[in-house]
């Protein structure tokens, strides 16, 4: 099993999907074991690939561009050839590991969490399809496959968000997610086709090479790059497309962990990372990424402070993290972004699964109804705390290394650096708030937590594994760790393969950021644990701000209004126009006009014989007159 055979990876879960869809109901346990077996095999198969890659890098040096393997899918000879192919390089491998591992964890976790669900088998089928698509997405060697998979993950997201389809809110959230991301996809598709038009290829490497060789006209390249970014923004829920992600929490929690934290939402980051050479060629592109990333970070961090739904808070924290990744990309450091992505996958999945355990145990997900769970669910509480601290960026946890790398990169740009620093305590604050309100203090609804307890092993084992990774994942940046694990050249090298320098650690920045985080945690502790009144006072004093935040800056309302007032009105008007003007007036009108001519004409038939005779004579005279005048 080497890099060339990587195409096999998506096929395993895809096969599981097909089998489960067609025969699921007839399989024992609805076939969940099959899905897990498939994903486990996939996960296991990533290791030979990593080994293959690292040895290839060791052999060829950092210039090693990866391995491509593709077959023809369809072609209009001489005009258009569409290939299916995989491309394995350093970035791919990072994603492979993340996707297959988190997916495995989530599937195992779901054994417990989804037990008894009426569409249990279907759930596993869709998860399998999602994994297959996600793997295909990261493995894609050309834009077409990428888009193909891009849409499929969107579909799976749609299906899974709407899993509890009997809930109106779930159905609406699923729709919203799909449509919002699809708007971004429009841009992506246009960009793909535009680039093809210029270069004649869909291959990502091919396009990049062509662009670097200056074969693409500047305006087309500019347009394409912005359109690609539009796709990335949609998928990664960047402002102004961010509105779907919090709503997506209507789906089952493991799904949120997998799709809306660890994998799908980072597809945008992945896409921009892949195509970053294009962005570098376009003036202003990276600045745009940076701006969008920052804006998203701020908006989400501030909203995270006031949300009460446990999953939504985590969702805003995801937005927060995604924003950070884009900031890294905007600063020109894909390695930092990928590193954050890698670490984020573990602690964010952990947070979601922990939240899932809470919800599973209490059937509540509003922090205003929770509290005091620490004693009932120690394992969940502990792992959740690790996740929250990792998210906040406390030293030596996974989030710390990645965040600091971003900060280091940002030091070159003071303004950005300052702004980033500003977000750190806010992030820490709301993570602290979330943990405190959920696990500490008095139970606000004691009957809710009465029977709460840690989940079955299927749920706890993933939590523990993820918690461990949230602690240690950051260390992979050190080559020594990789070598110790037996990979030639280390793992960190994979992530930093294309960077001019490997991982940098700036002690000053680290200390500074740690202080800020600690102060954020401290303030959080103070407000929500020690002096609960403060939060209420703050909410009253800063009422306009609070209202603004609770209402998500009224962006959802604005969108809804635009849709209702403008789009739906316009469509109704057009439909009215079509029915009343095009059809009833023009079409029916001309038919009626014809009929009316007939109606008028029929009165020549007066019933009176002399009139008839007169008509004959007039006919004769007219013909004769014309005939004579022709002569």
């Amino acid at each position, binding site marked *: 099993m080497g890099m060339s055979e990587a195409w096999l990876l998506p096929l395993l879960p895809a096969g599981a999907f097909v089998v489960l869809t067609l025969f699921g109901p007839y399989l024992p346990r609805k076939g969940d074991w099959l899905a897990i077996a498939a994903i486990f095999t996939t996960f296991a198969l990533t290791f030979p690939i990593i080994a293959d890659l690292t040895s290839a890098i060791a052999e060829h040096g950092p210039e090693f561009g990866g391995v491509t393997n593709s077959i023809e899918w369809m072609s209009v000879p001489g005009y258009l050839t569409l290939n299916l192919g995989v491309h394995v390089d350093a970035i791919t491998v990072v994603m492979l590991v993340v996707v297959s591992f988190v997916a495995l964890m989530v599937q195992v976790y779901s054994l417990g969490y989804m037990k008894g669900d009426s569409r249990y088998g279907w759930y596993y089928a869709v998860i399998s399809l999602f994994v297959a698509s996600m793997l295909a997405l990261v493995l894609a060697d050309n834009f077409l496959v990428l888009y193909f998979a891009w849409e499929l993950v969107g579909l799976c997201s749609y299906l899974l968000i709407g899993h509890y389809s009997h809930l109106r809110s779930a159905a609406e959230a699923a729709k919203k997610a799909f449509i919002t991301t699809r708007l971004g996809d*429009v841009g992506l598709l246009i960009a793909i086709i535009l680039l093809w038009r210029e270069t004649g290829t869909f291959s990502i490497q091919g396009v990049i090479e062509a662009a670097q060789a200056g074969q693409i006209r500047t305006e087309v390249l500019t347009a394409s790059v912005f359109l690609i970014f539009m796709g990335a923004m949609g998928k990664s829920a960047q402002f102004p497309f961010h509105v779907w992600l919090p709503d997506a929490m209507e789906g089952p929690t493991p799904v949120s962990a997998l799709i809306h934290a660890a994998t799908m939402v980072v597809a945008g980051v992945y896409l921009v990372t892949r195509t970053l050479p294009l962005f570098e060629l376009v003036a202003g592109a990276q600045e745009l990424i940076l701006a969008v990333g920052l804006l998203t970070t701020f908006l989400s961090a501030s909203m995270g402070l006031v949300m009460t739904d446990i999953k939504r808070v985590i969702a805003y924290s995801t937005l927060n993290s995604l924003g950070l990744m884009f900031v890294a990309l905007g600063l020109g450091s894909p390695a930092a972004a990928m590193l954050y992505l890698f670490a984020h996958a573990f602690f964010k999945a952990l947070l979601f699964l922990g939240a899932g355990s809470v919800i599973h145990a209490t059937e509540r997900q509003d922090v205003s109804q929770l509290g005091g769970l620490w004693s009932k669910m120690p394992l969940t509480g502990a792992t959740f705390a690790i996740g929250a601290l990792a998210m906040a960026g406390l030293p030596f946890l996974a989030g710390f290394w990645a965040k600091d790398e971003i900060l280091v990169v940002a030091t070159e740009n003071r303004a950005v650096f300052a702004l980033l620093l500003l977000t750190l305590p806010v992030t820490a604050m709301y993570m602290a708030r979330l943990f405190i309100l959920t696990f500490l203090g008095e139970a606000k609804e004691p009957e809710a937590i009465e029977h709460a307890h840690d989940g079955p092993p299927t749920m706890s084992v993933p939590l523990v594994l993820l918690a461990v990774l949230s602690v240690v994942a950051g260390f992979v940046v050190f080559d020594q760790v990789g070598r110790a694990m037996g990979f030639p050249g280390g793992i960190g090298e994979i992530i930093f393969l294309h960077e001019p320098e490997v991982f940098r650690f700036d002690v000053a920045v680290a200390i500074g950021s740690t202080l800020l985080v600690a102060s954020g945690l401290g303030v959080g502790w103070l407000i929500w644990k020690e002096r609960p009144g403060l939060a209420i006072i703050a909410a009253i004093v800063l009422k306009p701000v609070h209202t603004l935040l609770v209402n998500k800056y009224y962006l959802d309302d604005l969108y809804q209004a635009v849709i209702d007032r403008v789009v739906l009105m316009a469509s109704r008007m057009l439909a009215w126009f079509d029915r009343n003007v095009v059809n009833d007036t023009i079409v029916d009108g001309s038919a009626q006009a014809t009929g009316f001519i007939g109606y008028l004409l029929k009165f020549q038939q007066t019933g009176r014989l002399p009139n008839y005779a007169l008509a004959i004579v007039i006919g004769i005279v007219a013909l004769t007159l014309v005939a004579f005048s022709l002569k």
Partner: protein
Amino acid sequence: MQTGYILLATIAVPLLTALALTVIPSRYPNAIRVLAVATGFVLFGLSLYAFFAYQLSSGDQFQFELRWTWIENIGFLGENGITLHLGIDGIGAPMVLLTGIVAFTGTIISWKIDYRNKDYFVLFFVLVAGVFGVFASLDLFFWFFFYELAVLPMYLLIGVWGSSSVFPTFARTKEYSAMKLMLYLVGASVFIFVGIFAVFVEAGIGTFDLPTLYEVEFDENFQKIVFPLFLIGCGVLAGLWPFHTWSPDGHVAAPTAVSMLHAGVLMKLGAFGIIRLGMQLLPEGADFWMPALITLGTVNVVYGAISAMAQTDLKYMIGYSSVSHMGYVLVGLATLNPIGVNGAVLQMFSHGVMTALLFAMVGALYDQAHTRDMSVFGGLAQKMPRFVAFFSIAGLASLGLPGLSGFVAEFNVFVGTFQTYPALGALGILGAAITAVYILRMLSQAFFGPANERWADLKEMSHLEQAAGALLIAFIVFMGVFPSPFVDRIADSVLRIPGVG
């Protein structure tokens, strides 16, 4: 083995069945049904055979050729004046397959018709024969003959077995819709008819044989004048804006299987005609007029999609979505480059199967619920999971989801359009996004959410309907995942169209 008798059989079998049905006394409705479905199956088999036995590297433009002299050397008719000349190229092959699929599933879906089902099937098979005939004919006269034959039974099929719709602000009776549809389609044939006259006279060789006429070099001005006749005539059938209003009303009023055939296949006749009569016969005219078509086609896409968004009746929504999707076909044809035209033909097949599925599903629902107003439904997914699954797949195909047929087709259309008209291509892609909006709105509103008590006694659709739906889905997925069998056939023939490529 390739023989034109296959094609002849696709025409003759339904006609003979129609004849045979008239003999069966109407007090044996089940015998009638069995015969109908059996015929549908045979047609499906024949079309499948025709599709797969089509040889990719034969080098002939047309395969399965069969030529029976019908009338020659009389009056103005010279040698081969009118011949029953059958044959398909790579464009006709998928169309024949499409017809076979939809006809078969249509007969299955029609199983539950019990009001005068004999008359129904007689007319139905006449329609099917007409459609097969158009796709297989290589003679202008017979092309037109079969075209009209396909139109012929529509009035009664809609008028007798159709349904009227009443809305708060307006009503559409089935009689009105049937009449409008008939008048539109026959009106369209006026243009085609005149075009045929003109071509025949201008060629001056006394034959209606298309391959022979393809050899004729028509004067450029003549082409410019005559091409719009074919364009409008066939365009009407393809739902070309602003001649599209027959189609939503007609589809809504028609009984399920007829809507399927109608939106699924009959509208393709129009696009097929633009290729066969317009582009192949008058390439320079096509070249001159295509900018107009691509503009109108784009209007179709966007206008249809936006109109669909405002509909509350499921069938109307699908009807307008057909207008929108046929817009892709027109846009693809109008690009006049191999990719776009290839995409157009793919879209013809794809839309045919997909829309047939949509109509089949709506029909299955309507038969139980007796309403199609999506705002009164809700939570059907719990009562009828398979129904919702099938419906969703069709909907997803229609919004161009990769892995389903719609994507392959639309992608080709987009790529083709971008080659020549990037701005219109972008609008087309936007249209696809709007499609997503209305499809998902509909799914969310009608099928998901809390169950509505009013529909407590709805049952899952019947096994027959499921079988028909599964067959259609199989082709949607087949083409979405493995489009080569289609593309290889189509591309080869598309490249032979003069003026393309």
